[in-house]
């Protein structure tokens, strides 16, 4: 019994080692992704192109413009003569932010009933809107360099990520995204490939049991998943200074549970797909909702109820929750029982579906 399991595992490892491209992907995909996400995805938006229409031309209006520029969020391009020109420049994509200071700026400033100035934002791009709203809260100068001491109601402190760096939010969850991507595709393809090439017909005519065949094929990928986890963690810590506050053992246990869950998802897909191409398509079908709904990029709590229900059925949602807690907040695994149990439930249900659907027969 163990002999057959071992035989399948050995064969898989041997084939993997000889498949240079796949072997390269095991290391290549995580490396490429973490560098891509780490550098390109940046929610700390800076240096947005902006232009000003200053119809007031007072010392105060110039002081306001200087304050806005000093935030570093915008870079001022040459000023516009009027609103139509500003809109045209935004339309052409030259600027993302427009600042309009009306000619009655001084009167508005002294009165308290109307906004003193207007910020126009290119809402067709993500994130910029939120940035502009931040800009709008810049306090009004009484005179250049001097501010009415308007004490803010709240002081905001960002715990676990005081510098508010995107990498810290992204990298832990990225472990999940990358594992999700590679594990599902690799297992689905590994089984469907044998079906496509006719190997499976030979295998099911041998005394091998379904579970031996499946488990034997999954074991090498669990190891690969743990190697990928290590790789992303190392790069994350070295290049992007992502803290590792929790216990490494807890982290690897959580990762192993998640890997097992995604592998069984791959198994389920393999029982539906007839060709490797179909397996890839089905894998991507599960990948996109995982990335969008898991809380990896967008806060889970802000989603409509239906999206949250779908997200509950995705293993990535629960893993993102666990890994952020362990890695950033230093939470012990014991405090993560609810997401861990949900992952476990997914594993059991998916395994049951895969086993029920996989027969040692061709029909």
């Amino acid at each position, binding site marked *: 019994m163990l002999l057959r399991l071992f035989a399948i595992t050995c064969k898989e490892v041997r*084939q993997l080692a000889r498949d240079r491209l796949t072997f390269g992907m095991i290391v290549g995909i995580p490396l490429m992704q973490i560098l891509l996400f780490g550098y390109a995805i940046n929610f700390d938006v800076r240096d947005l192109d902006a232009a000003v229409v200053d119809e007031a031309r007072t010392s105060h209006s110039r002081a306001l413009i200087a304050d806005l520029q000093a935030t570093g969020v915008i870079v001022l391009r040459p000023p516009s003569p009027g609103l139509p020109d500003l809109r045209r420049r935004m339309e052409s994509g030259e600027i993302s932010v427009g600042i309009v200071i009306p000619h009655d700026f001084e009167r508005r400033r002294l009165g308290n009933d109307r906004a003193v100035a207007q910020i126009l934002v290119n809402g067709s791009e993500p994130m910029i809107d939120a940035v502009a709203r931040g800009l709008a809260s810049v306090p009004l100068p009484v005179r250049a360099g001097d501010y009415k001491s308007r004490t803010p109601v709240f002081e905001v402190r960002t715990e676990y990520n005081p510098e508010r760096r995107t990498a810290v939010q992204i990298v832990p969850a990225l472990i999940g995204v990358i594992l999700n991507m590679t594990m599902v595709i690799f297992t689905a393809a590994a089984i469907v490939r044998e079906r496509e090439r006719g*190997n499976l*017909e030979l295998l099911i005519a041998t005394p091998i049991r379904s579970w031996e065949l499946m488990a034997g094929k999954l074991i090498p990928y669990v190891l690969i998943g743990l190697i990928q986890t290590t790789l992303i963690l190392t790069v994350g810590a070295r290049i992007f200074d992502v803290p590792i506050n929790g216990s490494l053992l807890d982290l690897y246990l959580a990762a192993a549970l998640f890997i097992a869950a995604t592998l069984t998802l791959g198994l389920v897909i393999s029982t539906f797909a007839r060709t490797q191409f179909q397996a890839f398509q089905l894998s991507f079908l599960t990948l996109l909702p995982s990335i969008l709904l898991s809380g990896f990029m967008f806060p889970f709590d802000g989603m409509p109820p239906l999206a949250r229900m779908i997200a509950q059925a995705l293993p990535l949602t629960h893993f993102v929750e666990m890994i952020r807690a362990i890695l950033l907040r230093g939470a012990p695994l014991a405090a993560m029982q609810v997401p861990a149990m949900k992952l476990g439930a997914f594993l059991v249900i998916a395994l049951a579906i895969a086993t029920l659907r996989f027969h040692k027969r061709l029909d």
Partner: protein
Amino acid sequence: MNAVPQQIAPPGEVAHAIRARGLTRRFGHVTAVDGIDLDIPRARIYGFLGPNGSGKSTTIRMLCGLLQPSAGTVDVLGHEMPRDAEQLRTRLGYMTQKFSLWDDLTVSENLQFMGQVFGLPAQRRRARVAVVVQEFDLASLFKQRAGTLSGGQRQRLALAAATLHEPELLLLDEPTSAVDPQSRRDFWESLFDLVARGVTILVSTHYMDEAERCHELAILASGRIVAQGPPQQLMSEIPAAVVEVEAADTVAARRALVQDESVLSVAQLGTRLHVLIDPATPEPENRVLQRLRAASVAAQSTLVRASLEDVFVAATGFGRAAGARPQD
């Protein structure tokens, strides 16, 4: 898990290796196998002869438990299939139509792997691998990847893998379809060696010369067995007289002959015509000559022994009848 299931009957007591009754398999609206009865004796080579799509592969897959029959019963080595399929796995050897060992593993790795999967203990596995490597002349290819082997070499490897665990029954699905004539002859030598050791072999083919080598034969067409028996018997009991015609103008001769209602089929072999005639016709060779003389075609004719191809043509409805018959 490794315990040998209690055998319902020891090998010697079951007269037949395979017995099937009314075996049927439908795929949607298509009936691939339609009510087949089989009695395959032990230690014999039993052949399935038929064109592509006649149901050979589907029947073999049902016999080794890979497909569930839509109707009918199958008894293999005294066990009911597909119910006891798992118990029988170690006693059956199956060679798929397409080469299905692993291209990226070497000959040695493939054999080791199959030995492990069949649960052979290390010592026996080593011994058996050594035996089949010698038997199927694989020693020089031992470290070569299966993907780089020629058609004949692959087929030797596949048969070596299928016989590694010393099965009592071998099911071979068109094993020689991608193999050169010399390799085919060597392959059949190996099959007779296996039969001499008491192995039962079921082999499907669409080659007449291979079918002729079998102890017994079933001719399949459109999912039915249309003729069954030893090849010699099938050839001598063919329901037609066979006349060979030598004519200068074969085209004219052919045109003249197909108009005769007693002529069942005409096939051309080089400058000769092979004519199947209604067996009730007296002196068929003269009948042919008269017909040709009437059409002023110069020709000679002789009554000859039927070949297996004639049997096949007769069994499948003499070509023109088969063409007119709707697909069933």
